[in-house]
């Protein structure tokens, strides 16, 4: 009996302490992705922003729009802030899963246009690029190295294995059309018809025998190049840079790459919506984004970050959103995805299952 009552007292004490601390400042739950991306955000954004704002955060991995939507639909939201691709964010917003951003709290006046929406605030700018084994095909820019998507498709000039996107159509069709000779600025126009989509799908179908692996995460892109499992892969530029830092023989080009951005969103009915909004305002400040290039080669969405960053020139010029690089790339059209993603995904999955 004595032991039981002691345990109860202890539990009660702990519980009251918890309630007390919660009342003062409840920590918010922030969800990002695994691998080098989450680590970069921790080091560049979250840790310092949390310290400076006094907002405690609980950091978890495994962010996914579908999980966020499930939480919203089942009225069991535990996330306060999560990371998503721009396309996923737009889709979640359309499904009514996201809180609207309070632009009185979050200051986007210094943001590049098209790096935020009513529901999402861009966190970084990245590019979907073609990467290759530099030992096999040469360093980027060197003679004989692959230069554009046509080379990615050219298995005679560049014999070897390829990796391509699994499960998801985001960024999968545009390269195929460019490889098929469609100029970058006409890609989305062509893709707006069923025939255009099928043209892209057929182009991928043509390459399929040489696609050894279909990747389904950024960590996998890096791993495939590191393990020398494939010779060429599509993927996100920062992942390849970090793989190269780990010793992988990998290089890539921004030529014909897809310019896209990741963003933060708050699920509808988040338990600490207001605190999350304040934290979002904090991490969106240029002072934090200026640190991001040190950890992953993703560019800031906040223009001012370029002005105040202490990163060396080579590093800055390697960022996808650097003015030198942007003109080489095709900016991803959120409008096209909002309109056609479902149909394109069905077609893409159809092709994958063959």
């Amino acid at each position, binding site marked *: 009996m004595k032991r039981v009552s002691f345990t109860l007292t202890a539990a009660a004490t702990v519980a009251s302490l918890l309630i007390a601390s919660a009342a003062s400042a409840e920590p918010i739950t922030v969800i990002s992705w695994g691998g080098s991306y989450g680590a970069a955000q921790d080091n560049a954004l979250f840790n310092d922003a949390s310290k400076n704002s006094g907002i405690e955060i609980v950091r978890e991995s495994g962010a996914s729009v579908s999980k966020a*939507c499930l939480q919203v639909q089942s009225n069991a939201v535990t996330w306060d802030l999560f990371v998503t691709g721009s396309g996923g964010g737009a*889709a979640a917003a359309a499904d009514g899963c996201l809180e609207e951003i309070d632009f009185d709290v979050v200051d986007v006046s210094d943001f590049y246009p098209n790096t935020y929406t009513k529901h999402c605030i861009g966190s970084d700018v990245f590019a979907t690029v073609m990467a290759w084994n530099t030992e096999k095909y040469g360093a980027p820019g060197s003679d004989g190295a692959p230069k554009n998507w046509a080379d990615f498709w050219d298995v005679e000039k560049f014999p070897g294995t390829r990796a391509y996107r*699994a*499960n998801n159509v985001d960024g999968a069709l545009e390269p195929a059309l460019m490889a098929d000779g469609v100029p970058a600025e006409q890609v989305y126009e062509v893709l707006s018809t069923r025939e255009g989509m099928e043209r892209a799908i057929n182009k991928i179908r043509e390459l399929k025998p040489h696609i*050894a692996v279909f990747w389904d995460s950024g960590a996998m892109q890096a791993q495939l190049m590191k393990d020398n499992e*494939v010779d060429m892969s599509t993927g996100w530029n920062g992942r390849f840079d970090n793989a190269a830092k780990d010793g992988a023989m990998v290089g890539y080009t921004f030529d014909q790459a897809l310019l896209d951005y990741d963003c933060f969103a708050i699920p509808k009915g988040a338990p600490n919506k207001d605190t999350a909004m304040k934290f979002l305002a904090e991490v969106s400040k240029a002072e934090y984004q200026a640190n991001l290039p040190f950890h992953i080669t993703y560019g800031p969405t906040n223009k001012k970050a370029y002005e105040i960053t202490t990163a060396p020139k080579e590093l800055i010029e390697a960022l996808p959103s650097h003015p030198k690089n942007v003109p080489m790339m095709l900016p991803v059209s959120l409008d096209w995805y909002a309109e056609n993603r479902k149909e394109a995904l*069905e077609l893409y*999955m159809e092709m994958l299952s063959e």
Partner: protein
Amino acid sequence: MTVVADNTATNANALIRQRRREEWSVLSLAIPAALIIAFVVLLPVGWLFYLSFIGDDGQGTLEHYRKMIEYKSYYRVFITTFKVSILTTLICLALGYPLAYFLAQLPPRWAGFFMLAVLLPFWTSLLVRTYAWLVLLQRKGLLNEFAIDIGLWETPVKLVHNLTGTLIGMAHIMLPFLVLPLYNAMKKIDRDLMHAAANLGARPINAFWQIYFPLTMPGLVAGSLIVFVLCLGFYVTPAVLGGGRVVMVSTQITSILENQFNWGAASSLGVVLLVATIAVLFIAGRVFKLESALFGKG
């Protein structure tokens, strides 16, 4: 006899009451299990059925099932799922039968040791085992490097990120599920039966096919069904070792949820897989007299 039938006989009513009480107390032991099954199995499955008939607009619809017929990818995914499950089961049979036979012939102490070796994988995480295969089988993996070193083949052979790798990984993980019931069935076979067969004139091969093999059928069927059904819903190994080329129902469901947020479509796939699994069990039950296979003959 008349005395017993007469309820006024000494203590007759009291004894009947006591018997009923005992029957109830035994029944009540099953109540927690029944409740757990109701909440953990039946409710979610019911919810799954419900969701599969709900469209994006929240109205009842058959759209998800119609799409399954319309798009060939769903059909192919089911074909792949059954193909992988059948092949895995066959590989497990080919490897597991001789293995179980070997174990059954060993003296108990050695059998225990080897059985431990068979079961050891059970105690390592599924993910770890699967990635271990990836490391072994990939292009610059241990196996390819070794085979090229000793001159077995010259260019790397594609062992993973395809059907081959998926089958290797799945067979490895599923093998114990087949070996255990098979070993059990083999252990139960009286050694005299094999002596009798030989004595009656059966050559060893005849004795095996006509006596030993039929007697291992219950274990064989039980083990194969367990493996087959587990394979049907397997996710991790085909996802990791299939390299996106082996799309099974489970992978498809995840992909639909992750990328389309379409609960209805995912649920309808789940429902079809569930129905297919039940159908397989039902047919197997009819063909092999499943009760006796699973619970043994009295």
